[in-house]
C-alpha cells in the first residue's frame, strides 16, 4: 500500500472525456464532479500482538448535473468503470427531474479563483509492518508507565494517502494530494476495589515519522493515572474550566449557530439578521481557520471548488460572519467561504476552529488559571456522547464528562458526572480565557472558564 492510489492527472482527463460523452445523451450542458481516491493502512494491537491489520484502496465519484430546466440532480458511485459512470450520470439526471425549483445551486463564483498555498509536503508511507512495530512499542511503553495500567483496549495507528479533484463543465480543475497519519492510545487502569478508569490521547501528523509518539504515550498515561483516585461529586452549580479539547468539542457541536445553511433552514439558534449581534461574553473570539499550519487535514478547496480560508466568526462577543456554500452565500449576498460539501443542497460545515481572546482583551492579565487558581472549580478534560447529549437546534446539552474537582489546589478525579446547560448561556457566562493557546487535533484554544454550570454527580 505504498503506491499512490491513482494517477489523478490521468483520471481527470479520463473523467472529463467520459463525462462529456455521457452527459450529451441527456442534453446536459452543465455538470460538475468531485472524485476522491485513497489508500489507507491501519493496525491495532493487543499486548504486543497484532490484532487487526487493515488496508483499503478506495475511489469514488460524485456527479452533479443541471437539466435543461436548471434543476440539479446528484449521484455518487464507487464504480468508476464505464458502466458505473454511465449509470451514475443517468441516476443524477433522473434525480434532477425532482430537483428543488426554489433553490438550485450554481457553480461557485470562486471555483477558478487562485487557491491558498498550503505547506503540506507529502510524507513517505512506511508500510504496514513498520507501523505495526511502532504501535507495539508504543503500547508496551504505555503499559510500563504504571502498574495499574493493565491494557490499552482502544489503540491504533494509521497512515493514508488521499487525493481529490473537482472539475466542472466550465473548465474549473482543482486537485490536491495529502498524506496523513494518526495514533490513538486509550488505556484502561484498575486498582483493587475500585472501578476501572480509562483515558487516552490522540496525535495527528502528515506522516508516521512526524507523529509525536512519546507525547501521546505520556499524555495517555498521565491522564489515565490521574483518574485512578476518584470521588463522587455532589449535584450543584460550579465554576468550570474547559480544557482546549473540551471547549472545542462543545463549540463544534453547536456549529449550526454559525452555519448559513442551518440559518436558512430555520434549525439554527441564529437568524439571518444575527450578524453583528451579541452572542457571547465580549472577551471571546472565534475563527474558522482551515489554513492553520497545525491543521493536518487541511484542504485548499471545498466540495464546490471554493478556496478555503481563515474567517472570523465571533469577534468581541459579536457574530461577524457565517459559514457559507455557494447557494447560501448567494442568498445572503456575500461570497462563498469554502465550507461546502457537494450536493443538490450543499451542506456547510466548519474546518478547524481557533478560539481566543478578543482583540481588546488580548493583553489583559488572567484572573483565573487552571494551574494555580485558589477557587474551587471543575476542570473538564473531555466531553462524551456528544451525538446524543446535544440538542443543537434547541441550544441545550447534557453531557457526561471526564474531569477533576480542584479544591484548595488539590486535584482529584470525578467518579461519574454530567454537565448540562444552554450554549448561549455558556458563551455569555465565559469569565476567563487563559493566555496560552494549545493546539489539539481538532483546533486551537486556551483553557476557557465558565461560571454557574449545572453538574450532576452521584454523591
Amino acid at each position: 500500500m505504498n503506491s499512490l492510489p491513482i494517477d489523478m492527472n490521468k483520471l481527470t482527463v479520463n473523467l472529463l472525456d467520459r463525462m462529456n460523452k455521457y452527459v450529451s445523451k441527456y442534453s446536459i450542458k452543465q455538470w460538475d464532479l468531485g472524485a476522491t481516491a485513497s489508500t489507507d493502512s491501519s493496525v491495532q494491537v493487543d499486548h504486543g500482538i497484532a490484532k487487526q491489520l487493515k488496508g483499503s484502496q478506495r475511489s469514488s465519484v460524485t456527479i452533479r448535473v443541471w437539466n435543461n430546466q436548471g434543476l440539479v440532480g446528484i449521484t455518487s458511485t464507487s464504480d468508476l468503470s464505464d458502466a458505473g459512470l454511465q449509470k451514475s450520470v443517468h441516476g443524477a439526471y433522473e434525480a434532477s427531474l425532482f430537483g428543488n425549483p426554489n433553490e438550485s445551486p450554481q457553480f461557485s463564483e470562486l471555483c477558478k479563483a487562485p487557491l491558498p498555498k498550503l505547506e503540506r509536503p507529502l510524507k513517505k508511507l512506511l508500510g504496514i509492518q513498520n507501523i505495526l512495530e511502532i504501535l507495539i512499542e508504543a503500547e508496551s511503553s504505555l503499559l510500563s508507565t504504571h502498574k495499574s495500567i493493565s491494557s490499552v483496549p482502544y489503540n491504533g495507528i494509521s497512515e493514508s494517502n488521499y487525493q481529490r479533484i473537482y472539475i466542472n463543465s466550465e473548465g474549473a480543475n482543482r486537485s490536491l494530494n495529502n498524506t496523513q497519519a494518526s495514533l490513538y492510545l486509550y488505556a484502561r487502569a484498575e486498582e483493587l476495589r475500585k472501578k476501572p478508569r480509562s483515558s487516552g490521547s490522540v496525535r495527528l501528523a502528515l506522516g508516521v515519522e512526524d507523529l509525536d509518539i512519546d507525547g501521546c504515550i505520556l499524555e495517555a498515561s498521565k491522564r489515565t493515572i490521574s483518574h485512578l483516585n476518584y470521588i463522587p461529586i455532589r449535584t450543584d452549580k460550579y465554576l468550570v474550566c474547559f480544557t482546549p479539547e473540551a471547549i472545542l468539542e462543545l463549540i463544534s457541536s453547536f456549529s449550526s449557530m454559525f452555519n448559513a445553511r442551518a440559518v436558512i433552514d430555520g434549525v439554527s439558534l441564529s437568524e439571518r439578521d444575527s450578524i453583528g449581534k451579541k452572542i457571547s461574553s465580549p472577551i471571546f473570539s472565534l475563527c474558522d481557520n482551515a489554513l492553520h499550519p497545525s491543521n493536518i487535514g487541511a484542504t485548499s478547496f471545498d466540495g464546490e471548488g471554493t478556496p478555503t480560508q481563515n474567517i472570523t466568526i465571533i469577534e468581541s462577543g459579536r457574530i461577524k460572519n457565517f459559514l457559507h456554500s455557494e447557494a447560501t452565500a448567494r442568498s445572503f449576498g456575500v461570497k462563498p467561504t469554502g465550507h461546502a460539501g457537494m450536493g443538490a443542497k450543499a451542506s456547510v460545515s466548519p474546518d478547524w476552529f481557533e478560539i481566543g481572546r478578543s482583540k481588546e482583551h488580548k493583553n489583559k492579565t488572567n484572573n483565573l488559571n487552571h494551574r494555580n487558581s485558589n477557587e474551587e472549580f471543575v476542570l473538564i478534560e473531555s466531553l462524551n456522547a456528544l451525538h446524543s447529549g446535544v440538542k443543537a437546534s434547541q441550544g441545550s446539552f447534557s453531557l457526561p464528562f471526564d474531569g477533576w474537582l480542584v479544591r484548595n489546589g488539590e486535584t482529584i478525579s470525578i467518579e461519574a458526572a454530567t454537565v448540562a446547560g444552554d450554549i448561549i448561556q455558556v458563551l455569555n457566562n465565559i469569565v476567563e480565557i487563559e493566555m496560552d493557546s494549545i493546539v489539539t487535533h481538532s483546533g486551537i484554544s486556551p483553557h476557557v472558564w465558565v461560571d454557574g454550570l449545572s453538574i450532576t454527580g452521584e454523591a
Partner: protein
Amino acid sequence: MVLFIEKIPEKDVALDSFGCHWQTTLESLLARGRSAGADFVEIFLENVDHLGLLAEQDSITSVSPSFGKGAGIRVFLGKRDGFVSTNDLSANGLSEALDKALGMLSLQVQDSSLFSFEGLGDLTDFSTQKKLWLENCPKLKEATQTILLATDLLDKKGKHLQARRGSYSRIWQEVLVAASDGTFSKDIRLHQSIGVNVLAADREFRSSIGRRYGSSDRPNDLREWDPDLSTREVCESADKMLYADYVEAGQLPAVLANKFGGVIFHEACGHLLETTQIERGTTPFSEKIDHQIANTAVTAIDEGSTDGAFGSLSMDDEGMKPQKTILIKNGVLKSFLSDRAGELRTGHPRTGSGRRQSHTFAAASRMRNTYIAPGKYNPEDLISSIDNGLYCKSMGGGSVGPTGQFNFAVEEGYLIKNGELSKPVKGATLIGEAKEIMPRISMCANDLDLAAGYCGSVSGNINVTVGQPHIKVDSITVGGR
C-alpha cells in the same frame, strides 16, 4: 478436489449480479491464499444501490442516489487477521488485495504448498425469492409524493413548527461470501427507513422531536406506512415538550417506555455481550456465564429472524444463518454474541452475528434485533408503583464508554408524582453502569414492542432493532439542570 494456484480467471467477473459465475475466480483466490499459508481466507463481495430523499417544509430538497461495488478480503493466521478492502473487482484488483492481506501477516504465495483448499460448496442462495425486490420498491415519484404528504401532514397537525422534515432511505444490498472452509452464500437485503422530524419554537421555547421507522425485506414498506399516525405522534410530542421545564438532576426511580426505550439495554448491556468486548477486556461480564447479572425479572434476547424487523437477516456477513440467542434468562447470563474472530479468540461459538456496514469493514460480533422479553405487569402498574420519579416516554440516542458507563438522552419525559404522570420535562439524561443498573430493573410490563435504529461500532453503522416492554428501574442517575 484440491485446487491449485493458477492465473485468476477474468471472465464473467464484470457481470452485474453476483452468483455461481464467480465461483472459479473466488476458488482461485482462496486457493492462492491458502497456498501462502493462511489458516483461513474469506472474501466478501458487495453491490449496493442506495436512494436517499429529503423533504423540508413543502419541497424535496435532496434526492441522492448512490451505487457501489467492492470487496473485503480477510485472512487469518492463528488468531491474527489482515483485512483489505477494494473497489476494484477485476481479477487483478482482487488478487492484489489478497496479496496485500497476506503480506500483512508476512505470508507469500508459494509455488508449491502443503496447504490445500478443497473448493467451495454449492452456492447457498438466500436471494432466490428476492430478485424483484428492488424493482418492486417505490420509484422516485411515488417516494417523493409520500414524503411530501408527510411534511404536509406535519404542517396541518403541528403548532409553532419552525422546521418540518421528512426523509426516506432505501438500501438494496447484494452480498456474496466465499471462504476457504467452503462457505459460499449469497443474499439480497433491502432496508427502508422513514424519518419525520420537527422543530417547534415559540419565543424562547424550543422543542425538537424525531421518529424513525424502519423495516427489512419489505418492498411495500413505504406504501404501507401510516403517515397520518406517525406525524400525529411527532406533533403531539413536540407540542407537549415545547413549554416543558428542564428536569432537576438527581437519583430517581424511572419507567422507560417500550419500543425505543430498549436502547438502554442495547447500549448499557448489549454491547458488553459482544465478543469484541471480551477481546478488548472491556466487559465486566466476560467470566459471568451462568451468573446472575440482572434482576430475575429480566430475560433478554438477540435474534435476526423477526419478520420485517430492521435488524433481521437471512444470513450474517460471514454467510451464517442468524440464530435466536438468549443472552440473559431470568437475570442469569447465558450467552455472548459471537462472530468468526470472536469464536477463534474467545471460544464463544458463532451466533450468526458477524456484521459490517459495508465491504470496507471486517465483520465483527454485533447485535441484530435485541429486546427484553415481556413480563406480567400492565404498564400502569409500573407507574403506579412510584411516588416520585421519571417517565421516559421517548428516548434519544445514547452511548457506552470504555469502562461500561452509559448515558441516554430522554427526548420526551414526564415526572411521576404519587403514582401518576405529571408535567412534561426536558433535558434529562440517564446515566449509569450496566452491572449496577441491570439488577435494578425490577418490573417488566406485558407490552413488548420494537423500534428501528442505527448502531455505530467497530464494524461501522448497521441497522438494528431495539425493543422492550415498559420497564421500571428502581433508581438511576438523572442528569439535568
